[in-house]
């Protein structure tokens, strides 16, 4: 049980990065997954709601989607400020718990 993310992703400036989050039928598949960005020393910031919509003020460069038990966050036109840790999160109906993935550290080369 849990949400699985690759620990690290590296892409070049202005390239596109896709981060993944693997869950199961008790969380991602039936509840959707939200995406959070965290810079060192700061609280997490919501990039995408569980229904894949963006909060007000979040750039269109951030786009979330879901296919079955896997959620994805695509970041286009990578900028230096996109270098951060990214977490997926979802409510698990079996565990009755809010789950977080282990996080993916995005490096912009």
């Amino acid at each position, binding site marked *: 049980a849990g949400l699985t993310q690759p620990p690290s992703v590296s892409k070049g400036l202005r390239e596109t990065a896709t981060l993944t989050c693997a869950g199961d039928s008790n969380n991602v598949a039936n509840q959707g997954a939200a995406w*959070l960005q965290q810079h060192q020393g700061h609280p*997490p*910031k*919501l990039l995408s709601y569980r229904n894949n919509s963006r909060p007000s003020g979040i750039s269109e460069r951030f786009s979330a989607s879901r296919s079955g038990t896997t959620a994805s966050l695509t970041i286009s036109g990578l900028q230096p400020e996109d270098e951060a840790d990214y977490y997926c*999160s979802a409510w698990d109906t079996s565990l009755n*718990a*809010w789950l*977080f993935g282990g996080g993916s550290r995005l490096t912009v080369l």
Partner: protein
Amino acid sequence: QVQLLQSGAQMKKPGASVKVSCKASGYNFMAHYMHWIRQAPGRGLKWMGWINPITGGTNLAEGFQGRVTMTLNTATSTVYMELNRLTSDDTAVYFCARGENLWGHGTLITVSS
């Protein structure tokens, strides 16, 4: 302004207890559960549980049951999280959050002898 304001950093000795506060403002406090999440140094986010502001009922994550108490004061729109029997493994930043879209700034709790 919609925000969650947390209490300041604390240093505690092993075996002690710590209580962290989180004051909500700018929204209907009674309309949203409040969650607590912690993040150990260099590690990911771990959900600890939530408190229902209407009933005061709580739902604690496995691993924290019996050691965490969540309470609230509706008059001041403040929630509290108390963690007992501290060990060095409890050294972390503790966040309150109103779901994914509103987070407190975090409170660093350091447990050291």
